[in-house]
């Protein structure tokens, strides 16, 4: 049991924080970014080596683990960065490196690591909520490969992706755990329509329509009919990263809120003198410390050998992050008074991020159910 960070950890964290401080100035954090700005930030994140963070050095990656990913996510959350890191580095890259045919990995990964190619995982569907096995998009065997039909929703980074990893049902019933397969599709493939969508916190995503999209046999990623564990692992990685992002965001939000309470004066004294407000700040700090702990736990759990235990710990962390993140994001708006309701004040932008993180890859109720499910031992 050890929560200590090594010097290498600290160096990585400081490098990302320096980058974020320069690239995401505090007064504009959470603002919508135009395409040139998004591209510049993407290039900067690539230059830091963050896109290939988890990949083997032989694939151009940095060969780092989940703890390092947690540190990166915390810093990105602190800066309200909403770029390509989560879809590419956390979701897509390990999937490609671990399960894609060698030729495909060799074609897609170097660009992903360099920031010149984007890949997005399409695992959500209309009405499926957080059930990764609830897949109605079909993959039918055809001459030379597969034909895909269906609709995928809320594909993070899907609006700007060059390649898409699409979960489709190749066998079995709608919610069956077996019979899911993962296909790699180029963004320009005929029959694929990409509808960009912006989320509450400024994250970019897309809905996909697939109408008789032809996919070559060499584009199957992972085992036929056996993609669910791969997708679940990716969702666990994303959930853990989102917990860390929320910890970073709440940390920054607490600092902003304290600054406001110390400088804003009413009734002749700084707001910080009022005990009712002090107690809300105390509760925010207690929540933050718990989130930081659970971000560490989720990260360490990802590396654990037992899938059930890993999922339980990640779910506990994600449930807590969803609850505490939203609760204290909204509380911070209250503590900022009417200013907190404006688009100019950053408190609301942090609240949006905390709410969004809570409802991506499983909300509190979903993950509480996972925790409540019969235990592995």
């Amino acid at each position, binding site marked *: *049991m050890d929560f200590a*960070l090594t010097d290498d950890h600290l160096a990585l964290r400081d490098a990302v924080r320096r980058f974020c401080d320069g690239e995401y100035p505090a007064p504009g954090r959470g603002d919508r970014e135009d395409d040139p700005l998004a591209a510049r930030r993407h290039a900067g994140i690539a230059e830091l080596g963050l896109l290939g963070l988890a990949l083997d050095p032989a694939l151009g990656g940095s060969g780092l683990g989940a703890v390092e990913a947690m540190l990166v996510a915390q810093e990105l959350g602190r800066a309200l960065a909403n770029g390509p890191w989560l879809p590419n580095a956390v979701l897509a890259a390990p999937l490609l490196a671990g399960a894609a045919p060698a030729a495909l990995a060799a074609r897609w990964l170097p660009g992903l690591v360099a920031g010149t190619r984007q890949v997005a995982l399409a695992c959500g569907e209309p009405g499926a909520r957080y059930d990764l096995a609830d897949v109605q998009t079909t993959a039918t065997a055809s001459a030379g490969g597969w034909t895909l039909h269906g609709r995928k929703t809320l594909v993070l980074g899907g609006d700007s992706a060059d390649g898409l990893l699409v979960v489709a049902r190749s066998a079995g019933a709608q919610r069956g755990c077996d019979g899911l397969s993962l296909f790699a599709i180029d963004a320009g493939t005929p029959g694929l329509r990409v509808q960009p969508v912006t989320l509450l916190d400024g994250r970019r995503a897309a809905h996909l329509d697939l109408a008789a999209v032809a996919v070559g046999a060499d584009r199957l990623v992972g085992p036929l009919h056996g993609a669910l564990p791969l997708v679940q692992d990716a969702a666990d990685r994303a959930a853990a990263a989102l917990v860390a992002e929320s910890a970073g965001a709440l940390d920054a939000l607490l600092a902003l809120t304290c600054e406001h309470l*110390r400088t804003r004066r009413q009734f002749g004294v700084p707001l910080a003198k009022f005990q009712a407000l002090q107690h809300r700040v105390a509760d925010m700090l207690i929540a933050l410390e718990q989130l930081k702990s659970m971000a560490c736990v989720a990260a360490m759990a990802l590396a654990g050998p037992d899938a059930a235990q890993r999922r339980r*710990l990640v779910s506990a962390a994600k449930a807590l992050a969803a609850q505490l993140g939203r609760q204290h994001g909204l509380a911070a708006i209250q503590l900022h008074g009417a200013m907190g309701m404006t688009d100019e004040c950053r408190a609301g932008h942090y609240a949006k991020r905390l709410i969004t993180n809570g409802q991506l890859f499983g909300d509190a109720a979903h993950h509480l159910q996972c925790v409540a499910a019969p235990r592995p031992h």
Partner: protein
Amino acid sequence: MQLAFSATDEAFRLEVRAFVRTHLPADIRTKVERGLRLEHADYVRWFRILESRGWLTPGWPVEHGGPGWSHVQRYIFDEETLLGGAPRIIASGIQMLGPVLIAFGTPEQQAKYLPGIRQSNTWWAQGFSEPGAGSDLAAVRSTAVLEPDGRHFVVNGHKVWTSYAQWCSMMFALVRTDPTAAKPQEGISFLLIDMASPGLTVRPIRMLEGGTDLNECFLDNVRVPVGNLVGELNKGWGYGKYLLGHERTGIAGIGSCKQQLARARSLASAQGLGHDPLLQARLAQFEVELMALEFTALRLLSAHQRSSVPAVEASMLKVRGTELRQAIYETLLDIGGPEALPFDAEVQCLDAAAELPAPAELGTLAANCLDARKLSIYGGSNEVQRNLIAQAVLAAV
């Protein structure tokens, strides 16, 4: 970073678990599991068993008989003993006075008092709170005046909420020795007082749940030898703060939380609520919150492996741990439902072999729930803890 406990710590955990399983008397375990009141003799029996293994005083330095454990080992010890159905180590001689005497007492005081604490021959009462000095402890008004010959103090005053005073033969007390001091914290001294002294009377306070373990102590011209002053005259406030800050490893009460959550699960099954979705959701929520509390305690402890945990972090653990435990006790009461309502103030005093009112186990739930309200009041109320946390964070950012 490493999520698993080290092999050494895991081995230690098994050692503690096996020890508790083998040596904890079954009747004591039953009382703890049913939420029944423990007698003085029960505690003494268990404490002597622990002492025979060298485990009674985990917070004491090795040279004074402590086992030399790390924070993490102390954490594991607390957890395993409580999960095994053992009573908490509640004696304030062990938890509070011992460390103060070791740090500030004379060699004579140490030689005279520490062995009695370790052997559970002497129980110590904590004479801190007064009717006008609760969370604001610096407001103590009990006085100690040195007699002209300089050999005795004469103490007058009124102490309150004195736990287990009926079992105690000695008291350590904060008393005002310089009423003219500029600040309330100055002019307080730390005195050791024989409970058998003429002029000292103890009156039990009957509590909501029927217990009488808290007391008032009246001191009417009680003469205390000057050799019973700990440390320097008028410096008692600092010793008192040291004492309150010393016992922080177990402040979150995680072992107790786990103990009660396990009790809630088994009681829920027994009451046919094993598949009640609303109850199961609450229990899952507790499990998540308990996990967050536990890992936060471990994270903060591991950051301070060799030093004490800073006050603000201890305050956070105290607030979260006590509020979680109270919420679990409330849920236990819900699990009891209407059958938790028949209330017999004496039920907690039954011995372990006694037949509990049918259905078994439900008779203590209300009393336990009410008794748990003390958690957010004692040791500096949770509101005071929140003041301290906020002051630190508002000043630091």
